[in-house]
């Protein structure tokens, strides 16, 4: 079937060619409407030595948008590189800068993983916004030559009971599920958080991980003059013209000039066949390089491929298969139609390439070739509409040193600590019991099953841990059991109180989650969701968070391999006050040589001793308790001690390797109370727990013991026969450990319960009702 291609929709007279641009220097151009600043437009003219053509203007404006050029964040992101030690580089096969980072996991295997945001599109059209977010990150992974093996999603919404939340949540969740389920990737974890700061600006961050053999690694570049440039996948339509790039860079202002373009609609089926097609092309050695088409579409793919290559590129834009034959060259360059890829193919391989494409019913068109020049030239029916140095489009965009300053309000915020005088605390068994039940039912601590039951976690048959365990664990090699663990975590409240510590706490939590599952943490990806970089307070939050993350990664010896920055997350234009909570979302990847050794979080057997690892301080600033019970956010977040985190992780990994524990669960939001309840509810096995020794050792009261969110802690269930070996190991390594309970299925005729001795008892069924009812009550059973 041949695609309709543009029939010179623009008459030759109207076409803004390079020749015409040179001849009409004075022509007014809509650079401001396209989002360029005056000085940026001047720079484009300087680079070209003439005014840009309409098509060139389109390319520069999308590629120089915040979303594509990282112009506000670049100077800070360099910090990651500065903190990269030789030790950290060891397992790093590809670092920041490619479509996704690649990590060596041994036995000839590598994995590539990355998290990306699709925040603004998901507010406009929740289902398609979230779906195409998942689709986009999967193509990044495919571009590295990897087979995608799992996805995760980190979601943040406004108040759980706000009417617009009832529109956004079901749409986003079914969009994430709709795309991931249809494409056949297990969803192995993520986050769901509710906070009013995200009301008009939800955060939808999606992660994909892929696996490849070392020899299959491919980098996206256009090398070798005479090699062909092939576009394959879906046809190009008017989707999201100026879409992600403009959408992700500007705020929504009701009544303002509408920059809201047509949304992109995803076709996961097309992407599924595209995956199979790409893998077959890679394995048959039929492509030199491959690049996904995401935000900024062809503008991005052609300029990035050419810029990363060793020559120039000539593209015949009229050969692009179109869904809508009336599209202009500018629109074709900016279209963000989904499910497209671009490959560089030697002429000798073209026929074989096209045969594979045909087998999978994937349309492919040869658009042009790599040239021995140094320009990217785009022609439209033989006339040149773009003639630019590709690096100036793709890699040498503007860089801003935005002013930043610690906000004046930060001191007052930190001074407003949730002391006993400031916020009333429960005391005594009755009040503590009621608090536990309210807390486990609160929006941020209740069961996520309403969300995660809409995601296929089984497809591909390699998932061994997923929701609701601490980390997702998937097998990579079926013969050896080699596999990876992943966790995705963020805490906007902690980051608001102290962005530097908040970023490190998110890192520490993801790192700890991976280790809790028994995996050795190896590498990091991050999605940095912040407000407007034009506000010095927001920029300070950003700079602090990046510094905290970079230093934290160095201390833990895990490199940042890639990620994504999403700015302008705000509702209204009151600077810091209308911004979302600063939300660095951190993904940590770990390795297990044999995933059958992974440690689950739930208790299965009675009679296991429950140990608490780490120590508890009174740390309630930014805690879920302060928020859920009092709507309070103030004080300082918990302290981070990354040396301690590394020690804890080491012990947890050894426990898994040596089979010393049956279950392990990290302590995070909601503290010990939440961790105990989750461990109980997993399989309905209860526990008797005593807090006296803990309170005495750490100098805290039962309330603090249950709800403090001190970092660096986990609970483990130890079989009696391993107890000596386990405690010996902790003692030898100097890790604080304390037996705080024993698992218990309840005596004859009695229901299993969580019994906190001397304080209260809650039967499993009552806990379950409280924990599982909240989201269905808001969003429908």
């Amino acid at each position, binding site marked *: 079937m041949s695609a309709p291609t543009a029939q010179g929709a623009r008459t030759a007279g109207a076409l803004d060619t390079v020749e015409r641009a040179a001849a009409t220097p004075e022509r007014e151009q809509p650079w401001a409407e396209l989002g360029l600043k005056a000085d940026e437009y001047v720079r484009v003219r300087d680079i070209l030595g003439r005014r840009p053509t309409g098509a060139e203007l389109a390319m520069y404006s999308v590629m120089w948008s915040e979303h594509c050029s990282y112009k506000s964040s670049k100077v800070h992101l360099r910090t990651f590189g500065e903190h990269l030690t030789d030790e950290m580089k060891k397992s790093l096969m590809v670092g920041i800068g490619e479509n996704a980072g690649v990590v060596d996991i041994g036995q000839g295997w590598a994995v590539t993983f990355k998290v990306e945001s699709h925040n603004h599109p998901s507010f*406009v059209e929740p289902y398609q916004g979230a779906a195409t977010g998942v689709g986009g990150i999967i193509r990044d992974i495919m571009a590295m030559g990897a087979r995608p093996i799992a996805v995760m999603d980190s979601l943040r919404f406004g108040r759980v009971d706000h009417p617009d939340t009832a529109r956004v949540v079901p749409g986003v969740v079914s969009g994430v599920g709709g795309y991931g389920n249809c494409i056949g990737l297990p969803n192995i974890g993520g986050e769901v958080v509710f906070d009013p700061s995200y009301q008009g600006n939800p955060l939808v961050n999606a992660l994909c991980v892929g696996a490849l053999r070392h020899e299959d690694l491919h980098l996206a570049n256009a090398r070798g003059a005479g090699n062909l440039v092939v576009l394959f996948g879906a046809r190009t339509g008017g*989707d999201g013209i100026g879409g992600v790039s403009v959408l992700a860079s500007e705020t929504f202002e009701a009544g303002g000039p509408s920059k809201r373009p*047509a*949304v992109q*609609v995803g*076709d996961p089926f097309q992407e599924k066949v595209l995956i199979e097609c790409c893998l077959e092309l890679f394995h048959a050695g039929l492509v030199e390089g491959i690049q996904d088409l995401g935000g900024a579409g062809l503008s991005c793919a052609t300029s990035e491929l050419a810029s990363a290559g060793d020559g120039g590129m000539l593209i015949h834009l009229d050969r692009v298969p179109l869904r809508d034959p009336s599209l202009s060259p500018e629109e074709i360059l900016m279209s963000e139609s989904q499910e497209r890829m671009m490959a560089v193919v030697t002429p000798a391989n073209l026929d074989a390439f096209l045969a594979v494409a045909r087998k999978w019913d994937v349309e492919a068109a040869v658009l042009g070739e790599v040239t021995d020049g140094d320009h990217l030239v785009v022609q439209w029916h033989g006339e040149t509409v773009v003639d630019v140095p590709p690096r100036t489009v793709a890699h040498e965009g503007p860089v801003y040193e935005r002013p930043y300053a610690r906000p004046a309000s930060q001191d007052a915020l930190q001074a407003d600590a949730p002391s006993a005088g400031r916020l009333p605390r429960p005391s005594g068994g009755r009040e503590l019991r009621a608090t536990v039940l309210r807390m486990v039912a609160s929006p941020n601590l209740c069961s996520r099953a309403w969300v995660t039951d809409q995601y296929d976690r089984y497809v591909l048959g390699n998932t061994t841990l997923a929701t609701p365990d601490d980390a997702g664990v998937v097998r990579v090699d079926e013969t050896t059991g080699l596999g990876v663990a992943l966790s995705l975590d963020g805490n906007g409240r902690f980051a608001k109180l102290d962005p530097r510590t908040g970023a490190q706490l998110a890192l520490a939590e993801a790192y700890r989650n991976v280790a809790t599952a028994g995996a050795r943490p190896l590498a990091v990806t991050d999605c940095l969701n912040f407000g407007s970089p034009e506000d010095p307070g927001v920029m300070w939050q950003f700079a602090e968070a990046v510094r905290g993350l970079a230093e934290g990664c160095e201390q833990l010896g895990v490199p940042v391999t890639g990620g994504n920055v999403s700015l302008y997350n705000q509702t209204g234009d009151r600077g810091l006050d209308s911004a979302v909570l600063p939300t660095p979302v951190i993904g940590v990847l770990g390795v297990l040589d044999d995933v059958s050794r992974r440690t689950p979080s739930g208790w299965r057997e009675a009679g296991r001793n429950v140990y608490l690892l780490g120590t508890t301080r009174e740390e309630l600033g930014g805690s879920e308790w302060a928020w859920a019970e009092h709507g309070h956010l103030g004080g300082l977040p918990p302290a981070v001690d990354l040396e301690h985190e590394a020690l804890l992780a080491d012990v947890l990994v050894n426990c898994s390797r040596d089979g010393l524990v049956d279950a392990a669960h990290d302590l995070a939001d909601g503290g010990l109370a939440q961790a105990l309840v989750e461990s109980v509810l997993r399989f309905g096995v209860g526990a008797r727990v005593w807090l006296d020794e803990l309170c005495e050792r750490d100098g805290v009261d039962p309330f603090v013991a249950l709800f403090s969110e001190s970092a660096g802690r986990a609970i483990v269930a130890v079989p009696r026969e391993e107890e000596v070996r386990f405690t010996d190991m902790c003692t030898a390594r100097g890790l604080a450990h304390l037996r705080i309970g024993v698992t218990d299925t309840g005596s004859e005729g009695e229901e299993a319960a969580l019994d906190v001795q001397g304080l209260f008892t809650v039967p499993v069924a009552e806990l379950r009702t409280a924990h599982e009812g909240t989201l269905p009550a808001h969003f429908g059973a």
Partner: protein
Amino acid sequence: MGRVVIDVMPKPEILDPQGKAVVGALPRLGFDAFTGVRQGKRFELEVDGEVTPEVLEQARAAASTLLSNPVIEDVVSVRAAEEVPA
């Protein structure tokens, strides 16, 4: 008993994966006359009495709020039903 019929179609500029799948399948079954397919929705709403102007007004409002997503779909028609023979 009256009936209101509402037709909703994906906007022309929006990708319609369903229609695309159908247009791919038709020629394989020997139906070669068709160059494009779009798949939309048809709602039949029942009312107890007659289809009064007020009912139609409600149907129009429902069509543009609940029954269609204005970001990606157009309401093609809202009308009192007449039986159309197949």
